[in-house]
């Protein structure tokens, strides 16, 4: 009994810590100020890809938020367990087909060529599975040559919980040397920060039917979509420095796009900052920069409604 109580207390502590972390104070999007930009002669790109393969973005339930406290957290954990088991069972044979897929290598190959066109010269590129903590970040910043800044890219990728979409979200930030405080006045705040989000075209009707399509012909569609996600992420990165901090409605309203959150298709409002034949890059109201498939774009705008 005492052991159970102790374990419950530990879980509670973890939950409390997670709640505290929810109050993330650093803005999601920080624009690079001209005075900071002028100081940078080159960037050292550091790409952190912790994941070894695609996972399903299984969503934990929200019982913890509804009921609060330990009981809610335990219900959450139990349901999360069940959902992961279901998704892993479904993904099993698909994983057998994509065993040779190496997202890290694909990203590394792409970034070396694509960043040659970046607005700021990229002096070095490092791609690693090793997560960065505060000490490592400080070390990376301290070893920068004068004039260089650190470009930190942290991509994550997944299939939506219904397996219909391939998503990739990258946290991008630029850090000055640690002895050169940013204009924001804090040593621990990047001089630029953004979140780049790719969502593919929806594939199939969901569940096993979608997985069968992704996995057909040696997972040809999955492989090409994964490469597309990398290309689009880097495309967003290339224009990111010119994009405003917040979306601006040119005609009095923002456009609406369809977005699959894994459970339902929702509407996402934003400003189109780059339009293409098949995809649009959109600065959304949540301040993330999205690359969304154009056929999924709603023909109407909020204003037209």
């Amino acid at each position, binding site marked *: 009994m005492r052991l159970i109580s102790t*374990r419950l207390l*530990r*879980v509670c502590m*973890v*939950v409390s*810590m*997670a709640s505290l*972390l*929810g109050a*993330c104070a*650093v803005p999601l999007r920080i624009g690079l100020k001209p005075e900071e930009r002028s100081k940078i002669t080159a960037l050292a790109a550091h790409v952190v890809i*912790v*994941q*070894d*393969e695609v*996972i399903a*973005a*299984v*969503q*934990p339930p*929200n019982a913890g938020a509804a009921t609060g406290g330990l009981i809610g*957290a335990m219900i*959450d*954990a139990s349901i*999360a*367990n069940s959902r*992961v*088991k279901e998704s*892993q*069972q479904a993904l*099993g*044979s698909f*994983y*057998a087909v994509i*065993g040779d897929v*190496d997202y*890290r*290598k694909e990203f590394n190959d792409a970034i070396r060529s694509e960043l040659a066109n970046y607005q700021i010269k990229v002096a070095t590129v490092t791609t*690693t*599975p*090793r*997560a*960065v*903590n*505060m*000490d*490592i*970040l400080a*070390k990376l910043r301290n070893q920068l040559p004068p004039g260089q800044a650190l470009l930190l890219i*942290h991509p*994550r990728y997944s299939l939506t919980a219904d397996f219909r979409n391939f998503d990739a*979200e990258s*946290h991008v930030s630029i850090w000055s040397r640690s002895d050169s405080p940013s204009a924001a006045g804090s040593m*621990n705040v990047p001089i630029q920060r953004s979140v780049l989000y790719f969502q593919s075209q929806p594939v199939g009707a969901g569940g096993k039917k979608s997985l069968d399509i992704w996995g057909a012909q040696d997972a040809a569609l999955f492989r090409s979509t994964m490469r597309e996600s990398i290309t689009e992420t880097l495309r967003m990165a290339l224009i990111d420095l010119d994009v405003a901090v917040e979306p601006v409605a040119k005609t009095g309203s923002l456009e609406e796009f369809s977005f699959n*959150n*894994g459970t339902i298709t929702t509407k996402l409002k934003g400003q189109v900052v780059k339009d293409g034949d098949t995809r649009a890059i959109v600065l959304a109201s*949540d301040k993330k920069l999205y690359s969304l498939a154009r056929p999924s774009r709603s023909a109407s705008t909020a204003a037209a409604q």
Partner: protein
Amino acid sequence: MKKNVLISSCLGAALMLGMASVASATSTDYGSKVDMKYDRGARETYALQPYQSTCPVHIVLTEDARQNKETIGQSGSGALLTGDIGRWVADGLIALKDYGYVVDETSSLDPPAAGITVKTSLTRAYTWHLSVKIFSMVALKAQFIDRNGVLQEKYYRAHGDKSNMWGADSEYVTTMNYGLNNLLPAVARDLQSLCKGQKVDAYTYSGPEEVTKK
């Protein structure tokens, strides 16, 4: 937008803010070197019942064929560094003796005079987070050799999960052991057929519930 995305974001933020965690492993300048030791007692359920009819099983040291041989994921303190973990898997396979098999180690890939030689390569071994849980994934390619040569090649995957109690790096190793120990019952069950020269399914996935389904 999504709670798991929020948690992931905040975990990232926590890393940036230098969240302290309990780490029992050796600290390096780039994360913590975790002690990847096989633990036959790290199980999610206990349902081990030795098989009555078995054959000798010869284990070849597992090849670590992961694309990423550096890490098994990340904890609150940073990267979970490993290096080659072929020994960890081989030690797990040697625990097939818990299922009634007589197990020894061999370096020979020649057809054995008796029983089955098991040659394996580890293709995936990693952990990830969801809610307050740690999950692990272990993927293994196996080649079964009997006295007539290669009898069958097979692919196994298994996952394990546990509540993240302390954020300690050792908990990630425990979760990895859960995954490996969830995979072993499938191997043990297959060996029942392989020992008789009969082929089995080319792929098996097993989660925690597999242990009780022998």
